[in-house]
């Protein structure tokens, strides 16, 4: 990882981004807005799955919000990769970076399962909730995406773990 950090921080793109003071905060802002798009889209579909919103069918709700989840993920990936290239030490060597990547992989798997659950419920046109399996996957998807966000700012969590516990 140390060599990767060295190599990335020497790249012309890395130097160029660091030279312009507003690029990093702009990328961070877009990264946060993409987070907002994912969380709010998941919440909107979850509300429908849990039967807390009933004005749309599940199909309509999924059609409206699922494409936004994947578009936001692309925006997130692009800004995230640029932030890593610009500041590899601060990102790659962060104590929770690997946890964040693991949680992100889980969140993507949950989002895919979420889509499968939505497809299973395609026939359902009434206003009822979508059953407990879909409800559980919906909750897991939301919790995992929140966990990814927390891990992205989670250096402090590492500091809270007592020293002796790190050797368990």
């Amino acid at each position: 990882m140390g060599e990767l950090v060295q190599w990335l921080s020497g790249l012309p793109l890395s130097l160029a981004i660091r030279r312009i003071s507003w690029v990093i905060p702009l990328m961070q802002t877009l990264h946060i807005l993409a987070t907002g798009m994912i969380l709010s889209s998941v919440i909107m579909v979850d509300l429908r799955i849990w039967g807390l919103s009933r004005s749309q069918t599940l199909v309509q709700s999924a059609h409206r919000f699922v494409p936004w989840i994947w578009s936001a993920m692309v925006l997130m990936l692009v800004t995230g990769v640029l932030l890593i290239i610009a500041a590899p030490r601060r990102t790659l060597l962060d104590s929770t970076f690997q946890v964040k990547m693991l949680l992100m992989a889980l969140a993507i798997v949950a989002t895919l399962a979420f889509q499968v659950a939505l497809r299973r419920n395609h026939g359902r046109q009434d206003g009822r909730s979508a059953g407990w399996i879909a409800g559980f996957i919906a909750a897991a998807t939301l919790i995992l995406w929140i966990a990814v966000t927390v891990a992205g700012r989670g250096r402090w969590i590492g500091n809270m773990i007592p020293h002796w516990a790190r050797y368990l």
Partner: protein
Amino acid sequence: MTLPSIIDLLKWLETTPLAAFVSQSPWGFPAMLTLHLVAVAVVAGMIAVVDLRLLGLASTNTAVTDLCREALPWTWGAFLVSALTGVVLFAAQPVKYFENHAFRMKLLLMVLAGINMLAFHFIIYRRVAAWDRNTAVPLAGKLAGGISLLAWIAVVAYGRWTAYFML
């Protein structure tokens, strides 16, 4: 209130037990900041859902009243969390935030977004029955949606820039 008395008030705020805890504990400030970030992201995203409907860019087959009724209570819940954590974060370093130009812009834009929301709710939304579904939202409604969308994007941006102006 004169400027010195505001500074005195802020200095007093800094000495309150909660503010002292947050600024002195190794994890208090970053933990509050993390919670603030998650809540702000949800607020901006949920408000954008309604704004895009007003602008006619998304959810056009959903009635405006349905969308507001279903999305806004959760938006307010997230706003409450972001406001409470925001106040605690401010209390930890009140003088620094007060003198931070990006932070001032963030507050100013939130006031603008608030006035825009009140105008929408109490004036424009009263005639919602006429454009609730299958009809284009009137210009005033579109304008309110556009202002809200841009204002909240700018609030997020100035919030991020605030960190770079902390000296």
